[in-house]
């Protein structure tokens, strides 16, 4: 994970676009939280600059 995040930084996409989260099967609330959190973060970062550029 750290490796890919580093690569994304080098590429210029930003390592924050990738995240690892841990949870158990009973952690439905945490799952929803993690999704919300990630969505906020990505919204902050804006769209993938590659979007629509590569076929």
């Amino acid at each position, binding site marked *: 994970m750290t490796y890919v995040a580093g690569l994304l930084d080098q590429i210029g996409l930003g390592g924050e676009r990738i995240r690892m989260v*841990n949870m*158990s099967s009973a952690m439905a609330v945490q799952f929803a939280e993690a999704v919300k959190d990630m969505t906020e973060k990505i919204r902050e970062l804006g769209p993938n600059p590659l979007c629509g550029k590569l076929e």
Partner: protein
Amino acid sequence: MDSSTFEPKILALCCRHCAYAAADLAGAMRIRYPTSIRIVEVPCTGRVEAVELLHAFEEGVDGVMVAG
């Protein structure tokens, strides 16, 4: 695109036994979470290869969440 209207596309790679089950439960419990997420079930997050994460970005996703 301004940030208020931007709906991110996030790929979630979920372990069958942990996060995927948690997502299932979230559904059963009617917990609301953003529609930005696209869930892909994997047998184990250890199965996920670095190159697959990169390919996701090449295909244009805005973020990747590996959950296990």
